[in-house]
């Protein structure tokens, strides 16, 4: 790529920056930015990195709690205290757009990125989950995307040796052309071993570790913020290639280095690569960073500074090492056959200064990149469809169904049917902690050295949130909590992944705000704080925005592993109890969608007081061993929940008589 001499308005627009944003940059710098600086601002001020449309709304979330050690937004991931001097670190990330173009590598590099966000905080990754949404499997393209994404996740997670133990696969034509690939990683660390992503201590060294830099995913972050239109094929060089083997070396080497105490701060080079990792660490440390990109190991020749600063080559870390500790660091990285290069040092003037040899290439105030991105209070407007779908009357539907056939059809539908084909491709037993295998309720991992276990879920429902984003948000949280409770766990914390359309469309922003309000409302009521997560905008299919799809990842704790409960029926002659009221609420049900092809009606209106009573009662019944199993009602309602409770323990299957 040749460096253009002049910054033209077309160039500014191509970088996804508005005129006002460009003027603000000029005011900050007191001059025109050069091409490299323009690129740095464009990726750091993109929706993906700055959350400029979502930040004010995300403030609605409850982020405090007695066991929250690091609050949302402060660090790369949320940190939750689970006692015994142990903390769980977790986060979710979306790789929707790259996976729409190249499913295998798009999904694989999504997994790679989220793993790095965990071990960058000094935690040992112990589990991966993913929530996937695709268009209908009748279309070959969707089968191609589905197969590629699952194989990509499997190839990466299995190679790095982290069990993929749970999540969801959901099918609806709204995801046509824009699949959702939300990945979640969970790690564990002793509280005193946690590393913050901070650059402090003038003169400390900036160490670049991992794969060489190439022209991969150039401007991936700003690419993610541009809608996926037909011309996205033209963005082909944005495909990043994952190297799970180098990731495993990086993971082991970094954890080993942290134990030596020479590490001041660490961050993964994710979206916006070198620019985001250096500026974010300097910003958190209220310091500056000076780097010389001629020392950055490169895979391709003739890379201009713009490309080096924006490259999103995978499996690279930026580490701040105490001056004098670099010898120890180089020794460890040599042991693991990893390339480690000192590329700069920490300064105290709060600037990100980029040189090439001894000529200055870019100099930008750190906080301008990380904090001064404009924040937008987008316009919101109730969408036209909202009233139309709500006052839909179920009663005038033809009522001549053969309910045996209906049950079979529901059980056979891709969203509800068994996902064995998927999770048997994931190594879900490595690290020998997986006590409840995938495919049932929440996945359960024992914590070695304690009598505890943790429960993990990750799922969401786009249909409910389309019909009523507020109720959809509440239901997503409550359903995740019920999955944890039915496994005998107490819900502790949430990490979310919010997938929405183009935020500059008022209808989309209305959906986003309502949905976040619903999530916040349920989180506050059920006392389950949000420790962070990811917002993915610009998810559009050829007809317009996808259904608003909040994915809730939730952590629960089982203080005594004997309280573990599994959802399948255990003994003949056991009584079956339905806890909670069964109301006439068919809106947004899979029954309507699969049998009548309808996506309408009001979704179930959740009464949070009743919900909490049901959850607390169920957990107590489990802990006092009054009941033999518990299963929550979700897609497919009571009929499917009963069928699953009979089938889950196949091949030994039970029946049930219901009056």
């Amino acid at each position, binding site marked *: 790529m040749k460096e253009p001499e002049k910054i033209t308005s077309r160039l500014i627009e191509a970088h996804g920056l508005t005129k006002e944003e460009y003027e603000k940059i000029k005011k900050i710098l007191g001059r025109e930015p050069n091409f490299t600086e323009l690129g740095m601002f464009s990726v750091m001020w993109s929706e993906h990195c700055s959350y400029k449309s979502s930040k004010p709304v995300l403030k609605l979330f409850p982020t405090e709690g007695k066991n929250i050690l690091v609050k949302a937004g402060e660090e790369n991931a949320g940190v939750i205290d689970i006692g015994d001097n142990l903390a769980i670190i977790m986060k979710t990330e979306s790789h929707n757009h790259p996976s729409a173009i190249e499913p295998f590598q798009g999904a694989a590099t999504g997994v790679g990125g989220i793993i790095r966000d965990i071990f960058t905080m000094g935690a040992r990754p112990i589990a991966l989950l993913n929530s996937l949404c695709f268009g209908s499997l009748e279309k070959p393209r969707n089968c191609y995307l589905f197969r590629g994404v699952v194989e990509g996740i499997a190839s990466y997670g299995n190679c790095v040796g982290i069990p993929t133990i749970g999540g969801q696969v959901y099918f609806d034509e709204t995801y046509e052309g824009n699949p959702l690939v939300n990945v979640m990683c969970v790690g564990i660390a002793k509280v005193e071993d946690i590393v913050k992503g901070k650059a402090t201590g003038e003169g400390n060294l900036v160490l670049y570790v991992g*794969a060489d830099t*190439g*022209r991969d995913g150039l401007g991936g972050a700003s690419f993610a913020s541009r809608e996926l239109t037909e011309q996205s094929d033209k963005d*082909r060089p944005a*495909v990043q290639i*994952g*190297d799970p*083997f180098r990731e495993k070396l990086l993971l082991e080497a970094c954890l080993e280095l942290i134990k030596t105490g020479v590490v001041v701060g660490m961050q993964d080079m994710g979206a916006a690569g070198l620019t985001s990792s250096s500026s974010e660490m300097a910003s958190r440390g209220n310091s500056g960073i000076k780097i010389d990109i001629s020392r950055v190991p490169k*895979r391709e020749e003739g890379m201009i500074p713009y490309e080096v600063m924006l490259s999103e*080559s995978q499996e690279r870390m930026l580490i701040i090492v105490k001056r004098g500790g670099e010898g120890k660091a180089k020794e460890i990285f040599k042991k693991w056959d990893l390339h480690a290069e000192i590329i700069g040092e920490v300064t105290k003037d709060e600037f990100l200064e980029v040189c090439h040899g001894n000529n200055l290439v870019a100099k930008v105030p750190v906080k301008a990149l990380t904090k001064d991105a404009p924040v937008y209070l987008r316009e919101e407007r109730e969408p036209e469809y909202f009233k139309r779908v709500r006052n839909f009357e179920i009663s005038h539907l033809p009522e001549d169904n053969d309910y045996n056939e209906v049950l079979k059809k529901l059980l056979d539908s891709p969203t509800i049917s068994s996902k064995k084909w998927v999770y048997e491709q994931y190594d879900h037993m490595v690290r020998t902690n997986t006590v409840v295998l995938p495919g049932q309720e929440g996945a359960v991992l024992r914590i070695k050295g304690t009598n505890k276990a943790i429960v993990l879920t990750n799922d969401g429902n786009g249909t409910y949130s389309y019909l009523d984003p507020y109720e959809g948000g509440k239901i997503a949280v409550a359903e995740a909590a019920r999955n944890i409770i039915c496994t005998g766990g107490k819900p502790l914390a949430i990490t979310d992944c919010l997938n929405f359309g183009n935020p500059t469309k008022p209808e989309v922003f209305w959906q986003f705000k309502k949905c976040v309000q619903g999530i916040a409302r349920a989180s506050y009521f059920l006392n389950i704080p949000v420790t962070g997560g990811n917002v993915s905008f610009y998810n559009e299919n050829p007809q317009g925005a996808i259904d608003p799809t909040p994915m809730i990842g939730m952590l629960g704790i089982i203080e005594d592993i004997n309280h573990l409960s599994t959802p399948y029926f255990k003994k003949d002659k056991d009584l079956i109890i339905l806890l909670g009221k069964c109301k006439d609420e068919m809106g947004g049900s899979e029954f309507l969608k699969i049998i009548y092809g309808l996506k309408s009606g009001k979704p179930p209106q959740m009464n949070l007081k009743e919900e909490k009573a049901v959850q607390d009662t169920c957990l107590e019944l489990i802990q006092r061993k009054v009941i033999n199993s518990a299963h929550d009602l979700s897609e497919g309602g009571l009929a499917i929940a009963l069928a699953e409770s009979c089938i889950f323990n196949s091949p030994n299957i039970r029946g049930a008589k219901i009056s």
Partner: protein
Amino acid sequence: MFKVKIYISLKKGVADPEGITIKDALYSLNYKEVEEVRMGKYIQLKIEGVDKDGVKEKVNQMCQKLLVNPLIEEYSYQIEELK
């Protein structure tokens, strides 16, 4: 009957983790003169066809439709008639 040999390789600039790891392995086995290794696929086909051009057309279609990932791979091929 024709015998077709298809050579599929990663496009220039596309990262090749496997190639890098094999090069390092060769280096540690004392083959230090190796500058670069690129991993690819070698597919051999036997295919019925009327004439070479007809087969050529078919091979290109099969590559673009299934055998090659156009985003990161390029291909070349040789066709030979079997007596």
